[in-house]
């Protein structure tokens, strides 16, 4: 009887745990599905969602999210009103979302509306940042750097004004609590009439800083730590201390410099040797009473085959070496950043708006090609977003570029993008394999796309680049496939001495993994 009771309790608890919609999952889903049109606080394409769970009935919300058009067609008064209010732009249906998934999104919205951050259980630790030992500090800085690049770098630099102000010294200028609030939602502070916030807003042409509700206090601390670290590094660089100078001395001199020095020394020694030899010879000749020939002139020395032949050989070898390197780089075209028919900015879409890469490049999670989104995918959002005051680096406003997209949409003409990344024909590369199975971040090969207005090839994507990663990265032994084949193998071969198998060890460096 007792056992039964326990079982019931356990079941109830686990049932509750399962039934409880997870705000964390909701957050993920929100970013994938909603964030391109909705914000908690702000009106984007769609209305701000703050407290939407209080405004509307949950059942209604589920229906609306699943298929708003249906509700509108059915004549639901609220739905029709929203539709009219928002320029008759229908919200795209999400028929694949389950009730639980929608509930978790709503749970996230509810939490976010209350200003709570979702993954913020460990808030207390924040004050100890300065106290952590340097190793932890370094980790923190690294994390901060990553977050900074992902979230801030599109608009901010440490030492320079960009779209936003330079951030050096920001931790000294502002109160940390204020910074948390500001970064998470600046508009809120402005509307509350916070004097610093309003002043900043006015100063920076009333361009609001986009909110980052997903950042926890911990995250922001990491970013700030990174900023602090960077500014000190910059400061040190500007006013070098004696120690730094000494360090600079120890740095290896470039190859050409050392070569030059060596060759000058060799030349000097050679000339000394030649001179002494000549003198000895002349002395011998004089001793033998023979006529001493006139010593060679400088011109004769420099045109003698003993000098010219090695010199030319060196030049030829060097030339071949250079041509070889240049040839090897051909086609890799690092830094290639062609003009595109539409000035599409990843910095705005992926960086500022934080749209997930695979929202548009959805092929990456299904197959070989990540694919460039069809016009229809662009129009999902741009049916609503037809204006933008953002001034792009090419001097045009967002509105002008969006107009180009709309023109394509009108004419039914697909956009002829210029290809930046492409593998040669003899290379088989599968995005699904890398992104989904291998869990490789897009940026690892494509560079910090989310900071680029104009896509630029960052890395020299050569076979070495691929292999380097294949040799370092471990396969995911949680995957049933690898587990089935290699777990036992790992135990047997390495007797537990290593904790993982790299891709290359199980054939990731074989020719016919990529060439067939």
């Amino acid at each position, binding site marked *: 009887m007792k056992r039964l009771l326990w079982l019931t309790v356990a079941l109830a608890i686990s049932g509750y745990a399962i039934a409880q919609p997870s705000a964390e999952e909701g957050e993920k889903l929100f970013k994938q599905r909603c964030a391109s049109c909705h914000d908690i606080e702000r009106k984007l394409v769609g209305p701000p969602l703050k407290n939407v769970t209080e405004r509307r009935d949950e059942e209604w919300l589920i229906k609306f999210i699943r298929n708003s058009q249906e509700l509108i067609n059915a004549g639901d008064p609220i739905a029709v009103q929203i539709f009219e209010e928002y320029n008759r732009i229908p919200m795209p249906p999400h028929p694949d979302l389950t009730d639980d998934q929608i509930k978790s999104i709503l749970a996230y919205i509810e939490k976010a509306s209350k200003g709570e951050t979702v993954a913020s259980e460990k808030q207390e630790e924040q004050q100890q940042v300065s106290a952590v030992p340097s190793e932890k500090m370094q980790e923190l800085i690294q994390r901060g750097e990553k977050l900074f690049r992902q979230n801030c770098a599109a608009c901010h630099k440490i030492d320079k004004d960009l779209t936003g102000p330079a951030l050096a010294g920001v931790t000294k200028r502002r109160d940390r609590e204020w910074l948390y609030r500001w970064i998470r939602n600046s508009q809120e502070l402005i509307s509350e009439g916070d004097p610093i916030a309003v002043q900043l807003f006015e100063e920076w042409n009333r361009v609001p800083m986009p909110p980052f509700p997903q950042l926890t206090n911990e995250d922001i601390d990491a970013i700030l730590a990174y900023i602090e670290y960077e500014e000190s590094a910059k400061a040190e660089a500007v006013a070098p201390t004696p120690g730094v100078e000494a360090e600079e001395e120890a740095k290896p001199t470039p190859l050409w410099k050392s070569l030059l020095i060596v060759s000058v020394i060799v030349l000097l020694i050679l000339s000394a040797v030649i001179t002494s030899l000549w003198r000895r010879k002349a002395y011998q000749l004089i001793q033998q009473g023979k006529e001493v020939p006139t010593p060679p002139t400088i011109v004769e020395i420099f045109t003698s085959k003993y000098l010219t032949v090695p010199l030319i050989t060196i030049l030829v070898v060097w030339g071949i070496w250079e041509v070889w390197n240049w*040839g090897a780089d*051909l*086609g890799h*075209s690092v830094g290639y950043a*062609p003009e595109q028919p539409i000035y599409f900015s990843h910095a705005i879409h992926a960086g500022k708006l934080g749209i997930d890469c695979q929202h548009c490049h959805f*092929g990456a999670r*299904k*197959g*070989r*090609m990540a*694919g*460039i*989104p*069809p*016009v*229809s*995918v662009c129009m999902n959002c741009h049916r609503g977003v037809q204006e933008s005051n953002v001034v792009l680096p090419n001097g045009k406003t967002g509105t002008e570029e969006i107009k180009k997209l709309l023109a394509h949409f009108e004419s*039914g*003409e*697909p*956009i*002829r*993008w*210029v*290809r930046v990344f*492409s593998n*040669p*024909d*003899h290379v*088989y590369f*599968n*995005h*699904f*394999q890398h992104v*989904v*199975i291998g869990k490789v971040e897009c940026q690892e090969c494509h560079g910090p796309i989310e900071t680029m207005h104009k896509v630029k090839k960052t890395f020299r994507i050569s076979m070495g680049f691929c292999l380097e990663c294949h040799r370092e990265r471990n396969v995911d032994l949680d*995957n*049933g*496939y*690898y*587990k*089935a*084949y*290699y777990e036992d*193998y790992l135990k047997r*071969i390495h007797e537990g001495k290593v904790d993982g198998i790299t891709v290359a060890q*199980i*054939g990731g460096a*074989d*020719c*016919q*993994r990529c*060439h*067939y």
Partner: protein
Amino acid sequence: MEKKKYWKSIQEGKHNVQKEGKNYHPEFGEWVENTIFKKQLSRRDFLKWTGLTTAATTLASCWEVPVRKAIPYFIQPEESIPGVAVHYATAYFDGEEFASLLVRTREGRPIKVEPHPKAPFNATSAKIQGSLFNLYDHRRLDSPLNKGEKVSWEKALKDTKVILDSVKENGKVRIVTPTIISPATKQLLSEFLSSFSDAKHIQYDVVSFSALLDAHEKAFGKRVIPDYRIDKAKVVLGVEADFLGGWLSAGEMARRYGAARRVTKQSPEMLLHLQAESRYSLTGSNADYRYKLQVGEHLPFIIGLYNEIAKKTDSGLPTVAVSLSEDLKKYVEEVSEKLLSAPGYALVLYGPNDLKGQMFAVAINYLLGAYDSGLADIEKPLYIRQGSDHEFFELVDEMNKGQVDVLILYDVNPAYDYAYPEVFAEALKKVKHVITLADKNHETGQLSEWVLPSSVPYESWRDYLPKEGVYFIAQPVFTGLYNAKQFEDILLAWLGQDQNFYTYLKNFWTNNIYPLYGEQKDPESLWQTTVHDGYFMLKRSATQGEQQDGTQEDSMQADWSQYVNEASSIESPELSSPAVYLYEPIIGTGRYSNNAWLQETPDPLTKVVWDNFVAVGPAFARENGYKTGDLVRVSLMKGSGTYTVELPIVVQPGIAKGVYAIAVGYGRTADGKVAQTGKNAFPFASLVKQGGKYYVLWITSGVKVEKTGQTYKIVSTQEHFNLEGRPIVRETTLEEWKENPWSGNEERADTEKIKKLRKTTFYPEREFVQHWDMVIDLSLCIGCGACVVACDNENNVPVVGKEEVSRVHEMHWMRIDLYYSGDPENPDAVYQPMLCQHCDHAPCENVCPVAATNSSVDGINQMAYNRCIGTRYCANNCPYKVRRFNWYDYTGADSFPLNEKIVEDGPFANDKNRLILNPDVVVRSRGVMEKCSFCIQRIQEAKLKAKAEGRKIRDGEIKTACQAACPTGAIQFGDGADKSTKVAQLIESDERIYYVLEELHTLPSVAYMTKIRNRSKQNA
């Protein structure tokens, strides 16, 4: 037992290769001697060339990197993701062969056909494997033609409708099509015909089964072909019936043959295959006992056999007077004994389209109980041939009299493939309006007033009923590159109906087919399931209604004597030596003539490519002084004139004296460049009158053959990649194998020793987590060549053309070696598919200076094309001779057009044809070595799928292209490291397993299984 001596050609047979080996190098043909060794390259020339090539290479490397565009879809279809293949179930019928297929498409274009994994009739022959090429062939018609002028579809349909409307009330309309097995199309046709006062539909089969159909009509009242279930038979006798090479349905028959021939320890019985023939056919070469008939002896043989069986079974049926030679008497005695040893499980297939013989064959099958046991299933017969030669003969007669007003020809080409093409062409001129519907402007189209481009099966909606009760839906897998319309859509337009055939088909099924199913399900969901599955089978009960004929069988019993009397009263075709025997080659009967893959697939028996020829037996050749390559003039008096062609002689073992065997399907005049090879042999067929009806017979006497004194370059791959007489095939007989499973493979009987020897090595020991292995059962390989074509298609293997093949430059990754043994007049044959053996200790790897070929962790010998610098050391060091070098740019992958040797109209010839290429396999350029990769792209795809689903790769999940294409199932593939797989178990424990040249310690991954012939010991 003395070792069998194998030989590949008659010349080799005379040589003692083991002794003379070093002096006999047939593979270095004339060309090598003529060019390489005679042309001297001076030192200065050598330097010039070196300088030029260096400069050229430098120049070529300075190319600017082109700006490439990436153009996404405007609106991406939901099911299409770039880079992900989509498979569709469909079906294919070309008027001869039916197959249910799974078509792999990429970005909306079909790239490979594969047998449907579940449906019946899922076997592919070489033709079906190559059929996808016809979809893209750039020679296809792109616009309707009126008297040769291009016109728009609107005008074409309007004008032809006016023509048809004008003859509605008083005019003769005739439609000629190949056999139609689509119930919906038949219904539509009958609707169309009924809108005229005098209209008739004539079915015209190129490979005619008129006599077989008529014989069954006389016996059972149904003009059908019984479904020959050789998969259930114990003894099968083929009389001039090349049922594995094209008679009836090559792929499906081969599948059934394979099912009946598969021997395992659990079921150690196999089909006994007897063959009586004068020509040495593919089927005959696979027979356990082959009885060599002289010219025209098939008819006395079948009658004699009937007499013998009628006597032995005490059936009370009358015997028929026939004179038999001594040999024939012996044959009849022996064959009847064997057939009667398995009552109810013996079957006779009679090939020639001759009514008398067919009637006796039916009588024999009846006496053997084949109809009763369902071995020749007359209850649920085949419908894949329904044509009548006589009806077509009458039509030509009508046309000649000027009585036909409108003639509609759909998908037929009698001006090329009729026995009297010139008579048909003359008659065509007397028809007022000729409307041809065809995919190409072929010979008949060029004589027609109107030519309307019609879709090929892969572009059409259609249903099929190849066998009673088994329905198929063929969905289009491609929208089509060419401006063609489906035949049925044109009919609907002529009928003035708005709907398209898809709607018509769907309605037809909802109203006519689904109600047969009995229980009423929602037709919409049924339709969706049927289209998805591609097939639809009626429950047994549903077909009961049609079995009223079944009662006739009992009453038939009384009629059999009368039937035999009628048969014996029918006149025999006069056949005397010498005679021309026509046969269908790998390229089919004309439809696939422009298919370079099929043209380059070697003929199974002579291995000749890119030509048809006159095949004669060795003794006959000696008598008449024929040598392979002699050009002869073959002429035949026909009606008003003489038909003459000049063809080369090929001496082929096993052919009877007086037989000139010529393949049809060559010598097209109105098709692409590829199709124009060879000469048209159809006019050598004759029309024979039997029982008041005409039949097209492919055996004709009265030919005159004279030597022209000239020679012709005939290219055969038989002696290419010669293995220098090393013993690489093993065989035994069923009796011996039952006694000793190691028989024929005695060398491996000491398993401990073999295991120890295999482990003795200088190399570090390797452990495999996965190891891909292939097992090929030599008992099941029939040499049909389907695998070769499938491999070409899957792996973008270049087609090189006749000239290049003559230089031993063919690129096939897979070849089928043919070894003869015994008497050249009636030899035994063994087929051995030979492909890269993927050795664990591969000799090719050690000699590559740039490590372009090496062994992967899963036991594949991999070849990195882009690393290869073309030293060809690997090919020289390969004991199996399976590596192929790109001597020229066969694919257009190079920058220099000067290097190109692309076969015109081949798969690489132009952008439209190139759409057939597999985007997952790189197209190789000049100067690199290539070879079988074990279809690595398929392995990788399956691995990725397994990773996505987080599981191991299932056994049988990966099928190589050759394995999937093999109709008999001779090839098996799997992970040998996983001991639960079939392949691993076979390798582990089957006594028939052996490796080719195992003594070289190359440790190949391809294992072969000793061939078993169903013979007794003394006949071995």
